[in-house]
Structures are given as structure tokens and as C-alpha cells.
């Protein structure tokens, strides 16, 4: 089956101006990220700050140009011209974390949702009718909410508007970048249920980016783990959570609070903070924090080795890598 959306070797770096007496440096935010979203699936992306998950989403949406890499929709490369990008955005939409910053404060909720379709050529009356339909569909009664402004509704309601707006162009893929993270838990659960309903009703495929590993497990078919700009592990969600292969993924999962006061975490799986993606080490990017680091890890970066549907970028997973513990337990 052809993935509905695919990225191949997506890369993006930023130059940092040097301070006084300091040289300019480069942040490698995303390095060679390849993702494949199958039709009807939800692809979860997890990772900590600086891992490049949001930059990846912005590169896909064309909100910033990639340095390298390809973007494919239905197996066909997406052009870079204005027309090609417009056609692409009809198919791929995004919902951001900050529900109020992503809505125009001067537009009513109905106008916010109708705006996109109108820009894409739908007459105002039809656009408004579609907006009211969608508001109803996301649980906001148009009779009460259509004429309100963003500041007149709660955060959860605003995020529903953003979801309605993303759906207004009848896309096939929606990218959620921490879209439920700012919501209260009880509201988050409602929105997650809503996303599941909408996905079935409109035959959507989702990319779901979150730092919340519980939520990602709940919604995803496949999960990609990123660390310092790279994909370090990729697997069906059940496999990844049951048998994480990469030492970082294991540490990340072990860092989740236990939820059981009688079985608390006793040791932190990792020490220190995730480093910033500035002036990266030559070998494995996780090596400086890895409990299983060996010489080979510092010398040579491991490639993403695919075994069935489970892929992992670690010398431990490759018996011929020269890592003393390679093949054992990874």
C-alpha cells in the first residue's frame, strides 16, 4: 500500500549568530527524517524538547523550507511552487498547541473556520454553511457559538474550533502538534474521543506529535521516537511500548510516572537534560547519556536498521557493529 504522506531524508539546520567573541554555530534541528503515514492510520511522534518533532511538522506543512529531503503525497513528489503548495495544504492541515494564538482574535469562530475554504475559492455562503456544519460536528452548537470571538470561549472549545478549521478544507491528513497538551485532562479525553470519531467519519490519517507517552500509545498505530533531530526508533505502537529496542526509548518509557503509589519509580533512568542540537557529537547522538555506551558508539553513528516493521538506530541492535553487547537483548 502507498503511504498517503511520506517524507524521505528531511533535513533542516539553523545558523546561530555568534555572541561577542563567540563563533557562529549551527543547530541541526532535523537530520534525515523519513516517515511514512499509511492511509487511515495515526502516526505518533514522541521525543523531548529539541528532538525536532515540531520542526518536522513545520517542514511537512511547508511553513519553512527544508535544506534537503523529499515530501510525497500518495507516492508523488510535492512540488515547491505556490500552486503545488496550495494543493498540498488542501490535503494536509495542522492543529497547533496554543489554541488562542492560532485563531485570529478579530474573526468570529464561524468566520475563522470559513476563511480557509473561501481563500481556496468556495463562495462565502457555502463556506459559512460548511463552517456551521463543522462547528456542530466538533460539539459547538452553531446557534450559540458561530458568532462568538475566540476570547469568549474556553481553551477546550477554542481547540475544537481549530480542529473544525483544519477540517474545513476537507483534508486527508491532519497533523496535531501537541494539540491536546494544554487542555485539562477531562477535556483532553473528550477531544481525543472527538478526534477518533472524526477520523472514522472523514477517512482521515493523522500525525500526532506529543510529549505525553500515554496519549500517544492510546491514539497511534505506529510510533516514531526522535532524539536530537533523528528518528532513532520506529515500530507499531504495541511493539514499541511492549519491547522498546533503543536504550533511549527504554529510558523514556521508564521515565513515565508509575500511576501506582505502591510501585513507585526508584531510580531515574537517565541523568541530565536532553542536550541542545548544537555542535552534535560525531557518533551516536545519544551516546553521551547512554547507559550502554561503548567505543563504537562514539566513533560511528548507527544507521536505522529495519527488522520487519520495527526499526532501530543503535549499534546494540546490529550483531556486526562491534558493540560488545550487540545482539544481547536489543
Amino acid at each position, binding site marked *: 500500500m502507498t503511504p498517503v504522506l511520506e517524507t524521505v531524508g528531511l533535513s533542516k539546520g539553523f545558523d546561530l549568530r555568534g555572541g561577542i567573541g563567540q563563533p557562529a554555530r549551527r543547530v541541526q534541528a532535523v537530520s534525515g527524517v523519513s516517515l511514512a503515514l499509511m492511509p487511515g492510520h495515526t502516526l505518533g511522534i514522541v521525543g523531548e524538547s529539541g528532538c525536532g518533532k515540531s520542526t518536522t511538522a513545520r517542514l511537512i506543512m511547508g511553513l519553512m523550507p527544508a535544506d534537503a529531503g523529499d515530501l510525497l503525497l500518495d507516492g508523488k513528489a510535492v512540488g515547491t511552487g505556490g500552486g503545488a503548495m496550495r494543493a498540498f495544504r488542501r490535503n494536509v492541515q495542522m492543529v497547533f498547541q496554543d489554541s488562542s494564538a492560532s485563531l485570529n482574535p478579530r474573526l468570529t469562530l464561524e468566520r475563522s473556520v470559513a476563511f480557509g475554504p473561501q481563500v481556496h475559492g468556495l463562495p462565502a455562503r457555502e463556506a459559512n454553511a460548511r463552517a456551521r456544519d463543522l462547528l456542530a460536528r466538533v460539539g459547538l452548537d452553531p446557534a450559540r457559538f458561530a458568532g462568538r470571538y475566540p476570547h469568549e470561549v474556553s481553551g477546550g472549545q477554542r481547540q475544537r474550533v481549530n480542529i473544525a478549521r483544519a477540517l474545513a478544507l476537507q483534508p486527508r491528513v491532519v497533523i496535531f502538534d501537541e494539540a491536546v497538551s494544554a487542555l485539562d485532562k477531562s*477535556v483532553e479525553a473528550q477531544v481525543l474521543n472527538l478526534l*477518533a470519531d472524526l477520523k472514522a467519519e472523514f477517512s482521515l490519517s493523522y500525525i500526532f506529535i506529543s510529549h505525553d507517552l*500515554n496519549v500517544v500509545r492510546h491514539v*497511534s498505530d505506529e510510533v516514531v521516537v526522535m532524539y536530537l533531530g533523528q528518528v532513532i526508533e520506529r515500530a507499531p505502537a504495541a511493539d514499541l511500548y511492549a519491547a522498546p529496542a533503543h536504550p533511549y526509548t527504554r529510558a*523514556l518509557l521508564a521515565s513515565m*510516572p508509575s500511576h501506582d503509589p505502591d510501585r513507585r519509580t526508584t531510580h531515574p*533512568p537517565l541523568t541530565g*537534560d536532553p542536550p541542545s542540537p548544537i555542535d552534535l557529537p560525531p557518533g551516536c547522538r545519544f551516546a553521551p547519556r547512554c547507559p550502554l555506551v561503548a567505543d563504537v558508539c562514539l566513533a560511528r553513528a548507527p544507521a536505522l536498521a529495519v527488522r520487519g516493521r520495527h526499526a532501530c538506530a543503535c549499534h546494540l541492535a546490529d550483531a556486526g557493529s562491534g558493540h560488545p553487547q550487540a545482539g544481547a537483548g536489543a
Partner: protein
Amino acid sequence: MTAYLSLRDLTVRFRTPKGIITAIDRLSLDLNRGEVLGLIGESGSGKSVTLRALLRILPQRRTIIGGQMMVGGRDALALAGADLRAYRGGEVSMIFQEPATALDPVHSIGAQIAEAVTVHSGCSRAEAMARALEMLDLVRIPSAKARLASYPHEMSGGMRQRAMIALALSTRPRLLLADEPTTALDATVQIQVILLLRELQRELGMATIFVTHDVGVAAEISDRVAVMYGGRVVETGTAAQVLKRPAHPYTRGLLASTVHGAVPGARIDAIPGMPPDPARLPPGCAFAPRCAYAAPLCNAAVPPLVQGADGRATACVRIGAIGGAA
């Protein structure tokens, strides 16, 4: 024995342009030395206001505080002048969610800790700096001596939160208030900070109130848990009682909403509706409009917090009808 901290019918009201809002309504809590209370709730539930009331940093002219607040045998609501200054930051100390905004950007970490120590103990500058170094070591900041001269912006998020903890503990407080101290941190850093706080709390024996919206975090750190909703405590008990066998319908709904341990992809048993607007609380139980078990009785009056034989207390008049703890 009376508890170290004892709140009786603590009520906090704010004067706003839209009228008077009740942020906390008749809150009663006891906390002993060496005990960690996890205060769980969603936005607007009153958990942060409770901490601010305890630290006595609510804006005086716009706030009406009622009830009783006894801390270490003293009436903390009656403190003023030098006594109040010694109380804030000395007796009671707070760790905020965002160390980046809570720390002073123009002073080094060492200078900020030393200032707090000097103010509260009156010791010399050199002694205070020695204490600052000791504190940075205690919270396990690597190369602590060099870090004394660091400014907050030169530190990573996890390091800044450690520095914030060092600052809060430098004055040897007997009551530590922590307001979502790990919420802004990455997962691998969050667990480090939780374990550090747990260890320091055990070592130093402070009474601690840990505010969080994250049930998992509360399970990691709390001895006892109190769940707040609409400015009131709706359930309190040991961490195991409340988090493993929740009784109040809101606690049950909140735990079901966290999708921890849920079947992936299955529908979440979500609570309908939204948390209440503190300016427009319903006359009876604040949760009644969202509650699947609500009956006319629930709207008659605010249900009192009733303690059962096992020590757990629940504010729900329907608790008998819905079959006790889940």
C-alpha cells in the same frame, strides 16, 4: 497531637470588576511534619490559590480571606510586618512551575540563594555563599562551585528547576509548597526532579504540599492526596486509596481520562462538559452538572466532606448509592 499545618474552613474570595469570585470555599486540611500532600485538580479548581494563600502572597486589597490557617501553632493569617517577612520564605517556601520566570535574570544563582539566606538568617555574605554552594551540591547540580556564578539563562530547564529547589530549601523551611514543579520539564528530567524532591523531603522532613494536574506525578510523590474541584476538596485519603480506588465520581472520571492503562484506541470514558467557572458555581455540588450519578439532592446544598472508617473523606451525597470506592 495537633497537626503542623491546619486549615479550617479557609475561604478565599477575589474582588473583580465582575463581582466577587469565590476561589476557595471552606477548605479544611491537616498536614503533619514529614508528610507529602498531593493536591490534584484542573485549571480553576483552586489548587494554586491554596498555595498562594498559604504563602500569604495573595494581593491584599483584592482578596478576602476567611477561616483559620494555623502553621506550626501560629495563626498565619494574623502575621504582619517583620513576622510576615520571616514567615514567607523562612517558615514556608515555594517552588514555582516556571523557574525561568521565578528566578531573577540579572543575578547569579549563587547571589540569589545567598540573598535569601542572609535575609532569613542574618549571617555574613561569605557564610551565605557557603550555604548556597552546599545547596547546589544538595540538589546535585554538577560542578556546583562553578555554577554559583551562572545566570538562569545559562542553565537548562532541569538545572534551573534544581536551582529553584536549592533556593527554596536554602532557608530551611518547615513547609514546602510546590506548584506544578515538574510540569514544564521533559519526561526524563521530570522523573529525576521528582526523585530528588522525594529524597530531599525525606531527608529534611518538611511538610510538603505538591500541586499537580498529573495523576501519575501525584502517585510518585504523595503520601496523601486531596482532589479539588470548583474550589473545594471533593476527596481526600492516602495516595493508594484515592488513586487506586477512587470513590468520588469526579476522581473516578479524572482517573479514567488519563488513558493510563486504557485499551489503546478504545473510547475514553470522558467526563462530559467543562470545569465550572468559579464566578458561576452551581448552588449545590459543583460537579453535579457533569456527573453521571447526579440526583436532585445534589443541587440542594454543597455536600460536606464526610470521613469514612478507613480515613478517606468524600464530598458526595450519592456515595452510598453509587457503591463506594471503585
